């Protein structure tokens, strides 16, 4: 049976799909709705206000946490995305693909609390081992390398985000034809030039999406960050402690809604941009393919 024979069945399936997306989004949308209510959750009257949002920006603790979170997100992105790119190039050329793919995708399957605790204990032991080594040799240079800090949180988050970047970049690389690199090499370009001038422009959409993903994932991550960070607070840890200590205040609703807005706006604009881009590319391709009839 063709799908278009029964157009209503087709529409029904579409509405089911959209209903599922809507259901998944309901809690988030509901939080956004509550965040504009002056009376907070569960009140009988709904009075629109932006007051809660104003309170966020007067909260020094939160602004400090936001700064740390953004820095963490940036550092992780700057390291993890090039690593994922290198790994994807390695994977493409590798003879034995099982080992790299297993290593790079396995973090997806390890639950956050398990990865976090394993790394926490590993880093603590490593730290003690380094201090012991330093004592033996008589230098204190290695002492604080693996104390829980910004560095350990960064390492944990790189491991968490690398599978996502790897997959996104690999998918865009699938559309690239390697003959182009060979052609560039034959014309005398070295490996780096062939990559930067020929291949990168064609896969940059994937690389930039990977960057956006990584930033959002790091920004949103709670478990691994809270286990591996040292003394500093990130956005999610502040949010959690607020939620657990004082319950969901109007302010926590506003904060949740705000970051949700931002994340959805980033991803939404990426989706729209890629759609527009493929649209215009296919229009150009169609124009080129059109026979000249005059």
């Amino acid at each position: 049976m063709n799908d278009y024979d029964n157009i209503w069945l087709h529409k029904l399936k579409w509405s089911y799909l959209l209903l599922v997306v809507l259901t998944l989004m309901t809690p988030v949308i509901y939080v956004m709705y509550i965040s504009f209510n002056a009376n907070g959750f569960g009140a009988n009257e709904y009075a629109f206000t932006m007051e809660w949002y104003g309170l966020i920006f007067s909260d020094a603790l939160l602004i400090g946490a936001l700064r740390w979170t953004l820095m963490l997100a940036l550092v992780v992105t700057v390291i993890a995305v090039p690593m994922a790119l290198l790994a994807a190039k390695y994977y493409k050329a590798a003879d034995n693909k099982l080992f790299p793919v297993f290593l790079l995708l396995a973090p997806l399957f390890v639950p956050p609390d398990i990865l976090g605790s394993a790394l926490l204990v590993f880093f603590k032991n490593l730290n003690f081992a380094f201090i012991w080594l330093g004592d033996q040799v008589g230098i204190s240079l290695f002492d604080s390398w693996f104390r829980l800090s910004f560095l350990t949180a960064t390492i944990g988050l790189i491991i968490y985000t690398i599978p996502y970047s790897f997959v996104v970049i690999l998918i865009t690389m699938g559309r690239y034809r390697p003959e182009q690199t060979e052609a560039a090499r034959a014309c005398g370009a070295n490996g780096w030039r062939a990559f930067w001038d020929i291949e990168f422009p064609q896969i940059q959409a994937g690389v930039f999406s990977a960057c956006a993903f990584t930033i959002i994932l790091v920004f949103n991550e709670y478990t691994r960050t809270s286990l591996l960070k040292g003394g500093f607070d990130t956005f999610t840890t502040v949010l959690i402690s607020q939620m657990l200590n004082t319950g969901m205040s109007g302010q926590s609703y506003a904060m949740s809604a705000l970051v949700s807005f931002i994340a959805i706006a980033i991803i939404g604009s990426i989706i729209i941009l890629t759609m527009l881009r493929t649209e215009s590319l296919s229009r150009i391709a169609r124009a080129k393919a059109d026979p000249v009839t005059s």
Partner: protein
Amino acid sequence: MASLTNKRTDGGTLTVGTQTSQLLEMLAPWAFRAPLIFMVLFFAIPMAMTVVFSVFERTMFWMEPGFTLFAYENFFFSARLVNFLNSMKYSLISVAICFVFGFPIAVFVRKSIPQVAQHRVVLLFILPFMVSEIIRVFALRPVLQRNGLVNTTLMDLGLIDEPITALIYSHTGVVIGEVLSFLPFIVFSGFLAMEAVPKFIFEVCDDLGVGPWRRFLDVILPLAAPGIFAGSVFIFVNGLGVALLPNILGGAGAVNAGLIATQAITALDFPLAMAVSAIMMTTLMALLWIGHRLFDLTKILTPLS
């Protein structure tokens, strides 16, 4: 290459250039291996070390090298094991619900949506995933609570007389949370898996007069099995390991492996936390190994390479 350039030019500066490029040529393969080395050092080794640390002896605030199976005893001969097995049961229920609701979407996208638009439709399911998990899970409280969105809506519609309290702070709450958190993954992995089911198969089935049920059981399911299995393992293991869900949505007895591990860390019982991690890693490895033997999981990645 380097020797060729050397023969053509004999300027001093250029020799330096060739030396650098020689060095670069030598270093380049290692640059491509760097991510893998990083992953071995900070992912594979720490995960394997959980087994070693789990037999260390517990001290007041930390642990010291030694050999004791006390942490395992602590896990297997206490309420923890019951909780762990219970969380396995509810995790399996979540997997089944996710499959029933999510997999038909993957089939529909592959079968009935034009090729160019397929990826964009699947991207829709990334949208909820982009909102922090803690916000999504916490946001379920006002939705499922006694006076929350679901109960008030149902009461306004006159479908129920008094609020359903079993929706949250119970196993049901955890299952609802797991389904809402992990459903997109069965859509993604199902979508990848359906790559192995060519579109003409649907037409062949129609021509041969095969009904949708038999088509699903005898054709789609065997072909898409690797992807479905990978997605299910993902949901199952995360259902066992994400502490946030039972912590926020669960009631008495809703404790999974992730929660046991984090509670052990809070209680400074590091060997126990490592034992739980080791048990989880063993479970995961065993599942992946069985799946690989049964379906050859590398098939999922064929569309990628």
